Each structure stands twice: as C-alpha cells, then as structure tokens.
C-alpha cells in the first residue's frame, strides 16, 4: 500500500466499499496528501454525510463523525463552535449537500463558517441506485427520469458564492494533483471553503447517464467536459459551450469568519452585562 495510506488509513476497515474505478478513492488520496502537507492530523475533525462520499472519513485514522443525510454541516458547525481550533473538513455528496442538506449549506456559507466542504459530485444519487439529483444534467436518463430529466441542475459553485462562501473551487478526479493543492488551500483558508469535485461513477451515473461502466472512458469524458481558467482565456463562447470551468473560481480573504465574530459578539454582551 502507498505510504500515505499506511500513515493515515484505518487498516482494519479496509478494503474500501467503493466500486472498482470509483473516483472517491482518488479524492481520499488527494485529501490525505493535503492533510499531510498541512500537518494538521491532530487538529482535524472529519464529518461525512450519507451516500458513498460519506464513508470517506470512516477510513481515516482521525476524529470522525458519520452523520445523518444532509446534516453534515450542522454537525460541522457544532464541532467548530465547540472548539474553534479544530480544522473541520466535511465530505458530502451532491444529493446530501444540495438536496436534503440544501438549507444547511446556504446558511453555513452565509455565515462564512471556517470549514472545508468537499462535495463529491457524481450528478446522481448513487448509493440508492441511480435516482436523479439536484445536479443531474437536463434530459439525462436516470431511474426516476426514464424519459429524460425535465429539471435543470444547480451550478453548485455559483450557489456557494451567492450564499457567501469565501473560497470556491471546482476540480475533477481527472485532476488529482490540482485537487490536492486546492484542498490544502481550502484548509488554510479562514472561512467557508467549498470544493465541487466531479467524479466518475461507473456503476450508477456511468451506466445510467453516460452509457458506459468503463472508468477510464468516464474519466476522459469528465476531463474533456471541463476547462481550466487559464485555458479558457481568450476562447469564444462557442468554444466554451458545454464546458465547466475548473480551478479556483472565487476567493475572499476579507469577510469576517463566523466563529471569530460570534465569540467577539458574545464577549461584548458579557462585558456590557458586567458594567
């Protein structure tokens, strides 16, 4: 096993439950490299929601919580506010974060809570068998949209930015090196850091939406459907049609972070009560 796995994984929980060729293992690898680079393993608190992505923290030898569907962010809020020195990293899926967890997501972002949210985006509800999700492309065939998806997907990064997130980035599992660097940046960013990570899902989205279960073909499709900010410069709208932008999409280092402003307000009201 790779040394980074030997160092950080719970060996007794192995092997991973994810399907062969699933991108989640790649995301776990990128996260461990970022944690190693930031040397924060003793301060991390990892939270996983429900879905395949929610299992990521359970394989890491650190303080972890595996919580209810859509409720990773309220639990992360509790972890952060009870001990602001913690480095809280949340692993959530596109359904967990933007479906049932949508409300918690917009408010945690609005507050600019200092957490890192890694949203594993396979554009479908994978663990339950392939139902359409808030991020499923229009006209895509899923088990609950057999004649094509009549809805329109969220742009998670735009939603995060509009809600008040102060670090917003998108990458895919076809960019593991850049993803790892982005996670390192997100961890050190003081504020709500959101990463939309597009992932191949051979068993569900692969077979149902993209028509193939071959991980390499799916990953190639992911790479060709995205374009880096640098590569997109100077390209015409026709050339950029249908391509998602990857990279650091937004960063704001000025907005006050929630735990700091909350405890400052608490201290003000305590000192005015004393007077």
């Amino acid at each position, binding site marked *: 096993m790779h040394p980074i*796995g030997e160092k950080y994984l719970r060996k007794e929980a*192995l092997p991973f439950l994810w399907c*062969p*060729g699933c991108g989640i293992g790649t995301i776990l690898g990128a996260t461990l490299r970022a944690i190693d680079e930031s040397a924060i393993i003793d301060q991390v608190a990892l939270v996983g929601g429900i879905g395949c992505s929610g299992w990521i923290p359970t394989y890491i030898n650190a303080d972890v919580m595996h919580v209810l569907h859509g409720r990773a962010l309220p639990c992360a809020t509790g972890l952060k506010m009870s001990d602001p020195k913690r480095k809280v990293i949340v692993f959530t899926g596109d359904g967990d974060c933007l479906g049932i967890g949508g409300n918690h997501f917009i408010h945690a972002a609005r507050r600019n809570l200092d957490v890192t949210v890694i949203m594993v985006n396979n554009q479908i509800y994978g663990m339950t068998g392939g139902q359409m999700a808030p991020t499923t492309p229009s006209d895509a065939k899923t088990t609950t949209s057999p004649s094509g998806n009549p809805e329109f997907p969220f742009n998670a990064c735009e939603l995060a930015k509009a809600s008040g997130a102060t670090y917003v980035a998108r990458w895919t599992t076809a960019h593991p090196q850049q993803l790892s660097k982005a996670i390192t940046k997100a961890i050190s960013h003081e504020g709500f850091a959101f990463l939309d990570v597009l992932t191949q899902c*051979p068993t569900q989205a692969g077979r149902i939406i993209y028509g193939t279960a071959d991980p390499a073909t799916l*990953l190639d499709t992911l790479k060709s459907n995205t374009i880096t900010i640098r590569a997109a410069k100077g390209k015409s709208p026709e050339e950029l049609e249908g391509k998602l932008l990857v990279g650091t999409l937004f960063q704001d280092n000025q907005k006050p972070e929630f735990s700091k402003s909350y405890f400052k307000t608490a201290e003000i009201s305590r000192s005015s009560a004393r007077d």
Partner: protein
Amino acid sequence: MVNIVIDEAYCKGCYLCIHYCPKKILEKSITINSRGYNIPYVVTPERCSKCKICELICPEFAMTVEENRA
C-alpha cells in the same frame, strides 16, 4: 532505478493506471488476485518517468513509485 510496487491485495482491476500512464509501461497481467481481478504489471520499468500519475489516480492506494539507488 525505479521500482513500481503494485499491491495486489488492494487492486480492484479498474485499470485507470494503465490508461493514464503517459509512457504506456503498464499492462494487464495474467495474474489474478484474491479478489478475482487481473492485476496490472510493469512491462518496462526503465522507461518510467516518475510522474506518479499512477499513484495519484489509483483509488485503492495500490500503486507506489519507489526510487532505489542502483
């Protein structure tokens, strides 16, 4: 001297390493691991460029690019 270690206990036969190796030095072997997958093997290790894409892309932490002094 590069030694690419493939941990056959964890390989799930997704072959992303084979597909993404820029030097095309990995191929499916005839060895079947305990999970029933044909694991990859290194055809020409001397052509490895140590890019470590196989390490980064493998979802099971099964690939390690070791550099030993010859």
